[in-house]
């Protein structure tokens, strides 16, 4: 094979492998993040908040404060009426609790939800079971509850607990909360909690919380702040809306927003991430595309040079009976081969590069089971192969037609 042809093939190799690697990095980033985000429950759960911005707007505008949407029990009832909604629960949070497990102290926060609808929410327990509607003192532990801050004496540090949340199922744990009273003295209150199960990861706040009944949490909150909560006027800070399936998420979101609440869903994140990654892939693929375009020019150049060099040969072939299409096909086959070989080598190189990128990334980032920065799908491989062959073919067309139309006699006379 001619040195020039090898150089041209290398051009195609660089072009194809840069497209593959670039797109694979986009793929990999998307894959690892969507894998991370798309817990089954979380996709069909909407987080609803009181619309903070509209509250500010109306108070600034003066008057008309009663116009703002309040996330109270009436609102919860209205939310429940929306088509496609399965369950709605207010969320009441309590932070600053401490539990002691195996002589270690863990800081915990409670997330209070309505146990009456717990059955309808898409919370899945990996082990144990969900508390019933009347098990007011029963709780479910988030998967990472014990991975949070561990208090060992005065110093705090993030350590992996030796106790698994699963080990606590069926046990009673004692939670302590503190408050400072009017005289500046610290008071303590203890609360017994019965662990019935452990929640499968949702990718949200639940992972780091203890799920409890919202009546219990409200009670503890009132003790801690010393004030009675006025839900009717102030509303809950948050509610969770569980919908039938992911298909109705957008419709429900629109309706809830029409009620002047702020909605936040995993679907929105996935949607916007999807478009971000698409942009990323187009951008990265474009860089590879430029490399391939350069390779394309290289093929045209090589083929044209090859025709000049082989003019006499073309003339001889025509004289001994090669037809116009014989000559044309010969050159197109040659340039397609350049594209195809370049594509094949490019694929092999990008597979190696992909492994290498993931290996090096894993080395720096760490994490169990390796890291996926670059992810090459079979579709990407097939696309690259077809595309590089096509680039070769198309680059060859013009030179090939030129070769086929040479006058046989002029060609045979040339040196």
């Amino acid at each position: 094979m001619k040195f020039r042809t090898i150089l041209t093939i290398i051009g195609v190799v660089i072009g194809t492998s840069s497209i593959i690697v670039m797109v694979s990095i986009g793929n990999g980033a998307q894959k690892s993040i969507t894998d991370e985000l798309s817990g089954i429950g979380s996709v069909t759960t909407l987080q609803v908040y009181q619309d903070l911005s509209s509250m500010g707007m109306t108070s600034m505008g003066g008057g008309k404060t009663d116009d703002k949407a309040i996330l109270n029990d009436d609102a919860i009832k209205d939310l429940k009426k929306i088509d496609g909604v399965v369950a709605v629960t207010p969320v009441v949070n309590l932070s600053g609790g401490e539990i002691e497990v195996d002589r270690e102290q863990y800081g915990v926060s409670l997330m209070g939800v309505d146990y009456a609808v717990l059955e309808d929410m898409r919370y899945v327990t990996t082990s144990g079971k969900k508390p019933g509607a009347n098990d007011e003192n029963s709780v479910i532990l988030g998967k990472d509850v014990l991975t949070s801050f561990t208090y060992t004496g005065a110093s705090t540090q993030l350590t992996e607990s030796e106790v698994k949340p699963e080990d606590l199922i069926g046990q009673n744990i004692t939670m302590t909360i503190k408050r400072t009273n009017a005289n500046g003295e610290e008071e303590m209150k203890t609360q017994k909690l019965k662990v019935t199960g452990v929640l499968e990861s949702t990718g949200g706040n639940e992972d780091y919380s203890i799920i409890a009944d919202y009546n219990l949490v409200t009670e503890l909150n009132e003790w801690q702040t010393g004030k009675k909560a006025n839900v009717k006027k102030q509303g809950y800070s948050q509610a969770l809306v569980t919908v039938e399936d992911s298909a109705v998420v957008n419709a429900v979101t629109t309706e809830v927003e029409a009620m002047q609440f702020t909605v936040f869903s995993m679907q929105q994140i996935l949607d916007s991430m999807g478009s971000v990654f698409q942009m990323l892939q187009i951008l990265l693929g474009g860089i590879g595309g430029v490399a391939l375009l350069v390779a394309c020019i290289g093929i045209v150049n090589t083929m044209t040079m090859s025709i000049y060099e082989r003019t006499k040969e073309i003339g001889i072939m025509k004289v001994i009976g090669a037809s116009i299409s014989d000559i044309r096909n010969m050159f197109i086959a040659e340039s397609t081969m350049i594209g195809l070989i370049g594509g094949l080598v490019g694929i092999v190189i990008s597979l190696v590069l992909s492994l290498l990128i993931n290996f090096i990334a894993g080395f720096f980032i760490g994490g169990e089971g390796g890291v996926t920065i670059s992810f090459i799908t079979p579709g990407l491989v097939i696309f690259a192969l077809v595309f590089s062959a096509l680039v070769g073919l198309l680059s060859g067309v013009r030179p090939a037609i030129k070769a086929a139309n040479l006058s046989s006699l002029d060609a045979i006379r040339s040196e």
Partner: protein
Amino acid sequence: MHKDFKLGKEDINILKGINLDIEQGEMVALLGPSGSGKSTFLNVLGGLVPPTSGNIMIRDYRISEMTENELCLFRREHLGFIFQSYNLISTMTAMENVALALTFAGVKKEIRKERAIEALEVVGLVDRMGHKPSELSGGQQQRVSIARALVNHPEIILADEPTGNLDSKTSADIMEMIYRLNREENQTFVIVTHDPDTTKYCTKVIHMQDGLIESEVSQ
């Protein structure tokens, strides 16, 4: 038949009215001074360049009115060419050069090889079939190009100074071979030459002068 060439804006008349009949199995020598139009005539005859006016008929085929693709198909089946400068493809072996003519005719690979070897046998070069043209002498290269012209079993072989680059001993060998083929296969040969020695093998000797046939002698 007439042939003009465009030279700049001017048309120069190279072949100025040639009228000639050649019978099947004849061996025709075309003589004449350099520039008299011998090669041009041969190329027009082989359909490599179209005539400006006039007709060329080979059997029932009107060469002068064929499209390029028709000509190419016609050449494949009915014509063989031999050139002064051999015109072999330097990157191919003798055998591949000979077989190439069959490739375009769509002959299967094994049969191509078989027939290429047969043709090389005829010219006595089977033992050199794996050699590239650069590894062969001039006479041997010309014999490869003759084998290539023969391999399709064409009725007509057009040769433009086939011995022009060869010494007199080798020239005689080549002419003997052409003569033998003409006798044995009844192939028609039109041979351009300026070596009067070669004319002794021919059935007809034509002298050209300035684009015209000056004399036509059958012998």
